[in-house]
């Protein structure tokens, strides 16, 4: 039998939630453990847990203290959280179309200049990456991706923009992102996707799940317009790669 993994920290987030923390930093191994615990708790629910929220490094577990206390819940979570990771199952993979540069990616040229290369090279590096949805947060559907090419790591903008468009594809620090709704952002905007990761009256409402794999491919601005209309009408327009 494989050795158990080091236990996470159980940090009280008030009287009705506990933060199960695997790491203090952005760490792919920790994120895998977060997602594995999330999956395990979904597969065999503990009575009293009401909702789980995976993030980069911790799983926030909401619970009803009328059904289970902090200590009892911790005793049930720890053995699951220290289990060796199950063998990687085949994750869903999305191919996301992106119109890079121009009005859709206003920072592409500046990013290329800052990294001493051409916009086409930045596109190739960004679209060539193999990403994983590490967490979804901030606003509905905002998917934080791990797996950004090291050569594209750069600090966020000094002054965040108060509004960036829906569908923005951006990079910030060591992360890449797919933003669904218009929102403030301090990241560098490389392009826009017509894909809605959140669309209210569509089935499914939310396209991406933590743990999904993502790759990007470039489309021209005319194709963007066509796909954007289709997406507005409820089409998914992202390609799901069937394993």
């Amino acid at each position, binding site marked *: 039998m494989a050795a158990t993994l080091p236990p996470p920290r159980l*940090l*009280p*987030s*008030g*009287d*009705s*939630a506990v*933060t199960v*923390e695997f790491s*203090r*930093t*952005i760490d792919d191994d920790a994120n895998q453990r977060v997602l594995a615990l*999330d999956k395990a708790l979904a597969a065999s629910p503990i009575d009293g847990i*009401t*909702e*789980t*929220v*995976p*993030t*980069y*490094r*911790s*799983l*926030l577990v*909401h619970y*009803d*203290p*009328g059904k289970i*206390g*902090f*200590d009892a819940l911790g005793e049930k979570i720890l053995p699951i959280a220290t289990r060796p990771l199950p063998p990687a199952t085949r994750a869903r993979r999305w191919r996301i179309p992106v119109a890079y540069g121009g009005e859709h990616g206003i920072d592409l040229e500046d990013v290329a200049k800052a990294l001493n290369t051409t916009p086409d090279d930045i596109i190739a590096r960004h679209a060539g990456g193999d990403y994983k949805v590490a*967490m*979804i*947060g*901030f*606003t*509905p*559907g*905002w998917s*934080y991706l791990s797996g950004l090419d090291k050569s594209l790591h750069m600090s966020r903008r000094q002054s965040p923009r108060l509004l960036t468009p829906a569908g923005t594809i951006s990079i910030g620090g060591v992360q890449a992102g797919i933003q669904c*709704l218009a929102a403030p952002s301090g990241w560098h905007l490389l392009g826009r996707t017509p894909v809605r990761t*959140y669309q*209210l009256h569509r089935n499914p*409402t*939310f396209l991406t799940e*933590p743990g999904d794999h993502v790759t990007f491919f470039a489309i021209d601005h005319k194709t963007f317009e066509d796909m954007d209309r289709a997406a507005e009408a409820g089409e998914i327009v992202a390609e799901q790669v069937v394993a």
Partner: protein
Amino acid sequence: MSRLIVASIGPASSVQDGGRHGAQRYGLTVSGAMDRLSLAAANTLVGNEVLSAAVEIGPFGATFTARDGAVRVAIAGAPRNADVAGRPVAMDTSVTLKDGETLTLGFARGGAFTYLAIEGGIKGEPVFGSLAVNARAGLGSPYPRPLQAGDEFTVDAASGAPELRIELPKPAIGPIRVLLGPQDDEFDDANKALFLGSEWKISATSDRMGYRLEGPAIKHLHGHNIVSDGTVNGSIQVPGNGSPIALMMDRGTSGGYPKIATVITADVGRLAQTSAGTAFRFKQVGMAEAQEEARKFAQLIRSLADRLRSSDTVELNIEALSDANVAGYAVSAVDAGTWQVTAEP
């Protein structure tokens, strides 16, 4: 069917209920009533499910007019003067508006949020089980935005049931209770003591997303950037400037500032109803006490129907309310996103 017309209303007023649960993992904010107990009390008075949708009215006044028939409503929460066609209406009571009559609510006198529940509930299309307005995500029904004059609700005709009042426990006074964590280890003992030992005021630039706290600057041990993790209602995060923010119902589902403490469930509504400018303190409690208080709070909400009384003895209730009032606050400048309340000069 009758209609209830919003004849006039101030900003920071919207339809709210028990909130939208189950999709925080997708970044979807919970929303819901800032003061759950008052929402539940108003609903109980008109026979609705306790956490069903009602109108959450911000600190300004509002007027509602019944059309095409009578409408039965109830008010609970932040105390204010209220009347129907000149007849005074006490807080924590139900009242029936005859066709054409108008309910007039004054400014909140202490606190911020008053709940207007409508008999039969608010009709709308729930998303993730909720009608609560979350303006940023375009959610909420029948209006996915704060209410405006001219909005209207299609409602059940009044049942003609006798009017009721609800006898709530005396409002708790004293400090807002918190549990330390989840990131209290990002602060040294001196700064934790400063947080717990200081007097705080809620800034005028607060809203349903967060209450900014004015007081001493709280310093971090290792800087203010942590890797984003999950938030709850009542998380108290400390950004770079050292001024804590208590995250409220429209909070983002994740946040990247260290959270020094978390308001206990039983006290989140009390914090929500603390007027801007009023001095208050925090008090640390242990997990056992916090969870016991959470269970008692849930039990109180479940058993509100046992506290209904005939409205005959309503004068006693008015007295109790005026005792509980914190007078002396008036509403000043405001913009679309935030409400601002300042002490009268």
